[in-house]
């Protein structure tokens, strides 16, 4: 019985460690924020907080999808390509009318769902490694986009769409409200719903879930589709934010979304972590990157710092996961 008690203790210890890590990340972000207030007073201007929340909401939405995929021990590296393609679809299909915008947004989200479904089918039914599948579909989507636009994307982002990111409640843009709403909805589904039970069971042990009657194949396809759809939605918000047509606007969001989710406590190995943590991870990462920008470091050095932060964060957290 002593070993039993010991193990149980170790488990609550592990849960506490996760909580501590999340708190630690938030703490670091808070310290950074206070330090910034002293060194970089412009951090707390309404303009900066607004753009920070805006960027965080775009990263947040795509990170929600990435977190779902990570929860079932997968990985989606096609989200950046989907975001770019989504922006191009919005630009080329929508006119200035509301109906046109609705059609364009719908088309973009359908594209994301489609790519995600393809990812899921290949992973679940063909057993291909998620890493390979999603790198492949990323190339596929980018290639199709190039063929469609011939390198020079047509159209423009309608003025009406800009409200999504330019208007809001005080410094909080509508896109951040959207992100929080999505996070809360997913959180409830995962933590309270039977859906979450199936997702966490599948992520923890596919074998156990299957034997319990969970249709793990369908569930995986659904998760990847959801991730693709969320990436497309993030692309729609990105188009509103950027305001012009850029065929590579989503670049970097693949790695950033993985980093944000992992920083937010989602384990690479599946079954551990949650979407709220992932969203907070997106916020933390954005804050850090924002401070780098404000501190006046040159853009090239920023890129190095950004890469270093992601690599260090992933290496640190992944290493701990392996040790367990």
């Amino acid at each position, binding site marked *: 019985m002593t070993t039993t008690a010991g193990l149980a203790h170790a488990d609550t210890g592990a849960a506490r460690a996760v909580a501590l890590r999340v708190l630690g990340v938030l703490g670091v972000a808070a310290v950074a924020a206070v330090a910034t207030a002293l060194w970089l007073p412009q951090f707390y201007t309404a303009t900066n907080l607004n753009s920070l929340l805006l960027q965080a909401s775009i990263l947040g939405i795509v990170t929600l999808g990435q977190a779902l995929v990570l929860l079932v021990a997968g990985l989606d590296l096609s989200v950046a390509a989907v975001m770019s393609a989504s922006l191009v679809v919005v630009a080329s299909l929508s006119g200035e009318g509301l109906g046109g915008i609705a059609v364009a947004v719908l088309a973009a989200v359908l594209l994301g769902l489609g790519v995600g479904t393809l990812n899921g089918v290949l992973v679940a039914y063909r057993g291909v490694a998620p890493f390979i599948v999603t790198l492949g579909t990323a190339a596929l989507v980018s290639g199709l986009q190039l063929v469609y636009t011939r390198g020079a994307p047509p159209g423009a982002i309608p003025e009406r769409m800009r409200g999504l990111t330019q208007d809001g409640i005080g410094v909080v843009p509508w896109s951040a409200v959207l992100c929080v709403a999505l996070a809360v909805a997913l959180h409830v589904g995962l933590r*309270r719903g*039977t859906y*979450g039970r*199936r997702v966490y069971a599948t992520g923890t042990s596919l074998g156990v879930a299957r*034997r319990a009657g969970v249709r793990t194949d369908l569930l995986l396809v659904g998760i990847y589709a959801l991730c693709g759809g969320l990436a497309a939605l993030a692309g729609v918000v990105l188009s509103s934010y950027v305001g012009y047509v850029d065929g590579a606007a989503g670049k970097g969001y693949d790695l950033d979304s993985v980093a944000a989710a992992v920083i937010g406590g989602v384990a690479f190995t599946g079954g551990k972590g949650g979407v709220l943590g992932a969203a907070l991870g997106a916020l933390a990462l954005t804050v850090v990157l924002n401070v780098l920008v404000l501190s006046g470091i040159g853009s090239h050095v920023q890129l190095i710092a950004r890469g270093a932060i992601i690599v260090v964060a992933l290496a640190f957290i992944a290493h701990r996961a392996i040790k367990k």
Partner: protein
Amino acid sequence: MTEPVETLIPPPASMQRENTTLLRMRGISKRYGGVQALSAVDLDLRAGEVHALLGENGAGKSTLIKVLAGATQPDEGTVEIDGQVSAMATPAAARAAGVSVVHQEFSLVPTLTVLENLFLGTEIRARFGRVDWRAQRRAATEAAARMGVPLALDRRVETLSIAEQQRVEIARSLLFDAKIIVLDEPSAVLAGRELEQLFEIVRGLRDSGTGVVYISHRLSELTSLADRVTVLRDGKRVETRPMEGTTEADLIRLMVGRDIDAARHDRQHHGDVVLEVSGVRLFKGGPEIDLTVAAGEVVGIAGLVGSGRTRLANSLAGIHRPHAGEVRLCGRAVRLGSPRASVAAGMAVIPENRRDEGALLPHTISENVALPNLREVSRGGLVRRESERKLAEQVIARLDVRPKDTEARVGGLSGGNQQKVVIGKSLVRSPVPQLFVFDEPTRGIDVPAKHEVHRAIADLAAAGSAVILISSELPEVLQCSHRILVMREGAIAGELPMGASEEDVMSLAVGTPA
């Protein structure tokens, strides 16, 4: 390994057939958690001897071999090789001391050639670190000559038959000058002429002075091949004796040995047929299996590891799709190859591998119990914590799970309590499954938990479920079952009534008349 060429030249056979003791294992004991895998086992191996190691599944053979191979450390006891006490702290140390184990699963790289595999990691170097292929080829040819069979040195291993791959493994042992070669069920994968050739190789090794530990379940081959035999049972050495004058019936008696508790079940009237399996082939081109289990009946399935027992369980669970045949539950055909269809049809299969297939270790008892019962504990897609907790409490009460805490994480429970949770989550399904399949339900769990599991099996049958009990522990099968099916090589080798003896079961399992 600097000059392996020289070490390869076999010493004159005459010198080697003296009775020098190569290996002396004394008082080897090993405990795994609550299970005493070995207690004070002795084993002697002489140079130029084929020594058979015999015992039921779980008798301790594998553990003893692991100790010899340096893969595990004994709690007590010593290993002497050539009169010197060896620590055998690591597989590398055991290898350096001259011990080689040829496992049933080979450790060859399929895409490399035979020659490359033979010297993988131990290449003979010429100047400037180049591989000395000529020396390697020469050494390999000599090893082949010593075995008495040719080796196709330049063929890729993946193009070889199983028998040929096995020879490559044995040749590799010879190349690093192994004095002691352990062959773990080498004949299990062979038949006919290949089998004869294996025996020739083994005799050749013996004649050149190597000590061979030979593990096999095929008793008939042991009586002709082995010089001596050591029989293990329940982690103890029963006897070591010369093979001459020993019959197969003697061996079975030694392996099984103990008196059997009188079967406790009353003969009872069983209900309607619940499970009908007809014409199912577990392996491609394998034999067909037919069986029926009635309501209220416990059918035990015995057989050696690899005889198809677990594959049968997995076929019923929908994890494995059989190559042919039909499964009916209460008259309705069950879609094969779909775990969900099996669950929906009313089957509950308790898997052999608790950790990977039975329980979600990081999750709580209530989450584990809820997983196959999500519809019962939810409303409108949301889990109702209260119903979930009540269901988990039912499991805890019915199977006496400790701790009595629905929110305890399953990974922190003892093996026995984990198993109770795995069984319990099917037990509380509604409607109650009509068929329960238990695959090794008591492996690695303590005695009180074992009794709980046995009680649960008896209760289920009494309540009208059909039960299949698969177990390597013969006393368990004999005690808990109304009748026993013995599997061998993917087929049902025979059926025994309640009250059959362990000898009866073993002789069906190994395929020889007792």
